[in-house]
C-alpha cells in the first residue's frame, strides 16, 4: 500500500524489519498482575494476569459480557471516568506502575491511545479531528508541522486518498468505515506507544474491515496493539498473541497459532469452534 509508506516521523524503532520476529523473542511492553475490577458491588474481572508483547498484535476474545472491554479500559485507565468502577492489582507499562498515584493519567493516555467500538469523531472538521491530540499536547510548533502530522496520520490510516480534498468538512459527515479510520488516524496522530482497539470493525462492512486489518498489520511494525474482537477469523488473521476471557476470568493465553490449532483448555476449544458464546 503506497499510502502507508513515505513517512517515518512517528516510528518508534527504526531498526524494525517487516519479517515477523518470533513472539517469544519480543520484549514485554505491558504486564498485568492480578487485575480485578468492581462496578459498584459487582465484580467484573477476577484476577487477570497477562504479558503483552512489544510491536505485536494481541487479541482478546470471549463471549459478550466476559470483561474484554473492561480489561482494555484498565490499560489506559479509562475506567477512572466510570462512576463506581474500582480497579485492583497492578499494570505496568515498561516496568512503571500505571496506577501509581504520582503518575499523570493524562500523559498516560497520550502514550496509550484508544480506538472505540463505535466510531466517535468529534463534531469538528476532519483536519481538526486529527489535529486535536497534537494540539492539546503541543506536538507541533508550526502550522506546517501540524499539516505534516495530520497528513501522515491520515495516510497511515488509509484515509488520505478519500479525504485529501475535503479536510475542512465535518468528520461526522463521513461514512461509518471512514469515520472509524478517522478515529484511528486521530489516535496515531499523538504518536502513542500502545494502541488499544475495542472491536474496531464491528460496525464495518467486509471491505472496510479488510482495509483496517491491513492497517493493523502495518501499524504492528511500530506500535504495540491490543484488539478486542468477536471474529475468530479476525483474531487468527491479525494477531500474534491471543487471550481468551470467560466470565471475568482469563482462561487461556498464548501464541495465536497455538490457541487456534491446539487449545489446552476445553472452554477455549468450545468457544473457538462455536459451541459456547
Amino acid at each position, binding site marked *: 500500500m503506497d499510502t502507508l509508506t513515505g513517512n517515518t516521523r512517528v516510528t518508534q524503532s527504526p531498526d524494525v524489519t517487516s519479517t515477523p520476529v518470533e513472539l517469544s523473542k519480543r520484549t514485554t511492553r505491558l504486564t498485568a498482575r492480578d487485575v480485578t475490577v468492581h462496578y459498584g458491588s459487582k465484580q467484573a474481572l477476577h484476577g487477570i494476569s497477562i504479558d503483552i508483547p512489544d510491536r505485536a498484535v494481541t487479541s482478546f476474545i470471549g463471549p459478550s459480557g466476559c470483561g474484554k472491554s473492561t480489561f482494555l479500559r484498565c490499560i489506559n485507565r*479509562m475506567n477512572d471516568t466510570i462512576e463506581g468502577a474500582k480497579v485492583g492489582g497492578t499494570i505496568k507499562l515498561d516496568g512503571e506502575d500505571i496506577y501509581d498515584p504520582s503518575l499523570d493519567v493524562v500523559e498516560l493516555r497520550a502514550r496509550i491511545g484508544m480506538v472505540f467500538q463505535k466510531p466517535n469523531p*468529534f463534531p*469538528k472538521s476532519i483536519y481538526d479531528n486529527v489535529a486535536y*491530540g497534537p494540539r492539546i*499536547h503541543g506536538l507541533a510548533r508550526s502550522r506546517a508541522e501540524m499539516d505534516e502530522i495530520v497528513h501522515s496520520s491520515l495516510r497511515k490510516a488509509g484515509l488520505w486518498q478519500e479525504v485529501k480534498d475535503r479536510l475542512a468538512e465535518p468528520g*461526522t459527515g463521513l461514512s461509518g468505515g471512514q469515520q472509524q479510520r478517522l478515529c484511528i488516524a*486521530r489516535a496515531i496522530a499523538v504518536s502513542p506507544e500502545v494502541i488499544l482497539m475495542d472491536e474496531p470493525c464491528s460496525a464495518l462492512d467486509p471491505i472496510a474491515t479488510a482495509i483496517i486489518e491491513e492497517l493493523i498489520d502495518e501499524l504492528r511494525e511500530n506500535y504495540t496493539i491490543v484488539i478486542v474482537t468477536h471474529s475468530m477469523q479476525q483474531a487468527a488473521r491479525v494477531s500474534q498473541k491471543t487471550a481468551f476471557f470467560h466470565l471475568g476470568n482469563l482462561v487461556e493465553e498464548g501464541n495465536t497459532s497455538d490457541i487456534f490449532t491446539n487449545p489446552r483448555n476445553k472452554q477455549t476449544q468450545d468457544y473457538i469452534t462455536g459451541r459456547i458464546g
Partner: protein
Amino acid sequence: MNSLIIAALLLVLLGLAYQTGWARGGALATATGTKVHSRPQYHASYVAVWTLVPALIVLLLWAVFGGGITLNFIREQIPADVLAGLDANGLNALVARIHALASGYGVVGEIQPYEAAAGNALRSFQFITFLGVVAAAAVAGLGAMLYARSRITARHRARNAVERVIGFVLFACSAIAILTTAGIVASLLTEAIKFFTFINPLDFFFGTVWAPNNAATGGDYGKYGLLPLLMGTLMITVIAMCVAVPVGLMAAIYLSQYAPRQLRAVAKPIIEILAGIPTIVFGFFALVTVGPFLRDIGAAVGLNINATSALTAGVVMGIMIIPFVSSLSDDILNQVPRTLRDGAYGLGATQSETIRSVLLPAALPGIVGAFLLAVSRAVGETMIVVLAAGNSPVLRGSIFEPVATITVSIVNQLTGDTDFAGPQSLVGFALGLTLFVITLGLNIFALYIVRRFREQYE
C-alpha cells in the same frame, strides 16, 4: 338543570351507541366465522362517533340560532303601540324584564299586564323549544346510530375510520392553539393601529421622550417616545444575562461533570426551587436587600449608585434566571453522547479541555436555545422591575440610575381608569406589540442558530 339534562342525553346516547357497535362487531366475529377487519371496540367507537356528532350538531345549531329565534318570539308578544314607542335601549330593558318574569326572578317596579302575559308565553315557549331540541338531538343521534350500525360488516374498516377521527381531533386541538395566537396578535394589531391614529408611528418608535399626559381630556396627549423604555429593557436584560449566563452555565458544567453523585442529588433540586420563587418575592429581595447593598458598595468605591436602578433590577433578574439556564444546560450537556467524551479522554485531554473543546461545541445549539429562552423571559419580566428599577422613563446611559421598561409602562398605562378610547391606554397595545415582535425575533434567531449548528454537527 337544562345542561344536566343535555349531558345525560349525550351520555345515554354514547353508552347506547357504544354497546350497539360492540354487540354488532362481536356478533360478526362469532357468527360469520370469516376474518373480521376490525375488533369490536373499534366498531363501538365508530358507532359512537356517528351517533354523537349529529346530536352535537343539532345542539350547536340551537346554541347559535336559538337566541335570535327567542328574541323574535318575545317581540311578537309585545303590543305594537308599546314596541313603536321604544328605542334600542328601551327594547333591551323590556326584553330583560320579560326574561326575568319568565324565569320567576321578579322585577322592580309595576308589572304591566302585557309584560306578565309575555313572561308566561315565554316560559311555555322555552319549555317547548327545549323539549323539541332535545328530541331532535336524540332523533338525529339515534338515526345516525342505526345508519352506522347497518354499515358494519366483516370487511368494514372501522379501525381506519376511528383513526381518521382521532387524527382530526388532534388537528383541531393544534388548530385551537394556532388560532389563539393569531387572535391575540390580531387584537394587539387592531388596537395598536388605533393608537397610531392618535400618535405618529415615527414619534412612537424614534421618540426620545416618554411623558404621557394621563389626565388630559382631548388636545394634548403628551409624548410617547419608545426609546427610553427600550433602552431600559435592553439594559436590564443585558445585565441579567451577564449574571445568569456565566453562573448558570458553569453551575451546569460543575453539576453534570464534576460534582459527586450525592452532591448533585441535593444541589439540583435546590437550584430548581429558585425557579419556583414568585417573581414578586425577588422584587422584595431586590428592593430591601440588593438595592441598598449595591448602593453601599458604590459609596465605598466612590460610585453614585441608586438603590433602585437598572443594575439592581438586572442583577436580581439574572439571579432569577440562573435556574433556567443551568437546568436546561445541564440536561443538554447530559445528552452529549458519552462516546464523544471518552474519545477526548482517550487522547489524553484533561477534563476541562474535554468540556471546552468537545462537550460545549456539541451542546452549543441547545445551550444557545436555552440562553435565548432566558432572554425572552427577561424581556417580558415585570414584577422585579416594578419594584426595583425605579420607574423613571428617561433616556439615560448609566446603569446606576433608575429606568423604566416596556412592561412596567404597560402596567402604568393600563391600571386605574381606562376607557380604551385615547392614546393614554391604547399605547399599552403598541408597547405589547413591540414586546411581542422582540421576543418573536429572538425566537426566530434562536431557531436559525440551532438549525445551522445542527447541520454542521450531525
